[in-house]
């Protein structure tokens, strides 16, 4: 019974990956929208883009980690 609950929990934790996908898409999409309006300023902001993506992605990775812990460690 406990193992089954852990699997359900792992599946629920995977929702976080989808949420992180929304976040990353939001960052990249808004960057593209801004870059198309002012292409000359885009090159200087790629570092900011990657930092933003990294921060959005980190929380998705945390949820993936929780899922892995539930599957293999609990």
């Amino acid at each position, binding site marked *: 019974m406990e193992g089954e609950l852990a699997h359900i929990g792992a599946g629920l934790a995977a929702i976080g990956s989808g949420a992180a996908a929304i976040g990353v898409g939001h960052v990249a999409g808004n960057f593209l929208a801004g870059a198309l309006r002012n292409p000359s300023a885009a090159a200087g902001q790629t570092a900011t883009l*990657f*930092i933003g993506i990294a921060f959005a992605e980190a929380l998705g*990775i*945390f949820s*993936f980690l929780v899922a892995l812990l539930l*599957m293999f460690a609990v």
Partner: protein
Amino acid sequence: MADEATNGGGLSFKPMDQFEVKSLFGGEIGMFTITNVTLWLALAVLAVIGLMVLTTSKRETVPGRGQSIAELMYGFVYKMVEDVTGKDGIKYFPYIMTLFMFILCANFLGLIPMSFTTTSHIAVTAVLGFGVFFAVTILGFVKNGASFLSLFWVSSAPLPLRPILAVIEIISYFVRPVSHSIRLAGNMMAGHAVLKVFAGFAQVAAIAPVAIIGVMAIYGLEVLVSAIQAYVFTILTCVYLKDALHPHH
């Protein structure tokens, strides 16, 4: 129950087996045992030396292939440090260059089939992440003295909000090394586990071609992720370094 679920009903998926630490010459794994982690960490160091030292040792005026790669890498990281931390961050460029080259080579070596991805272990990335954290914190106190603490006191916010913001800033400061190291380890581990899961689908003859194309596509993505994660790790190091050098908001 757990066995049945991981076997996937006839198919056997063992995506986590590739991350197992094994002793190379047998015997119990202790503090100083030579394991596959040791081997691939050493190979990563050798790859960095081969790329950066051997190719540039001749110092040709017109660079060859190897030397131009080394020069491009150097220029790329140098520009990144200069852009993010400013002129006074250039002093710490060697540390950041070392981090970038090491993580890049370790990530790429992990992509060789049957190899071992050292950066997928939190034990490895935590050393890198906490190393950056302690270096940056000590540097901040040495450079700014007690006024380094003004990093947590957001002077641009309204006064009643500042204590609350200070608590949030302190928490986010101490989560930094954790997220810094877990981001790299998690990305590498997730990507390699997905590769193995797709490879597992190739056991069924009917979907094997799709699975193999899938593995190829994910592999291409992984090459990209390896480079981007090395870049992200270094650029965040630069951001933290900038905070240490200029703590005032």
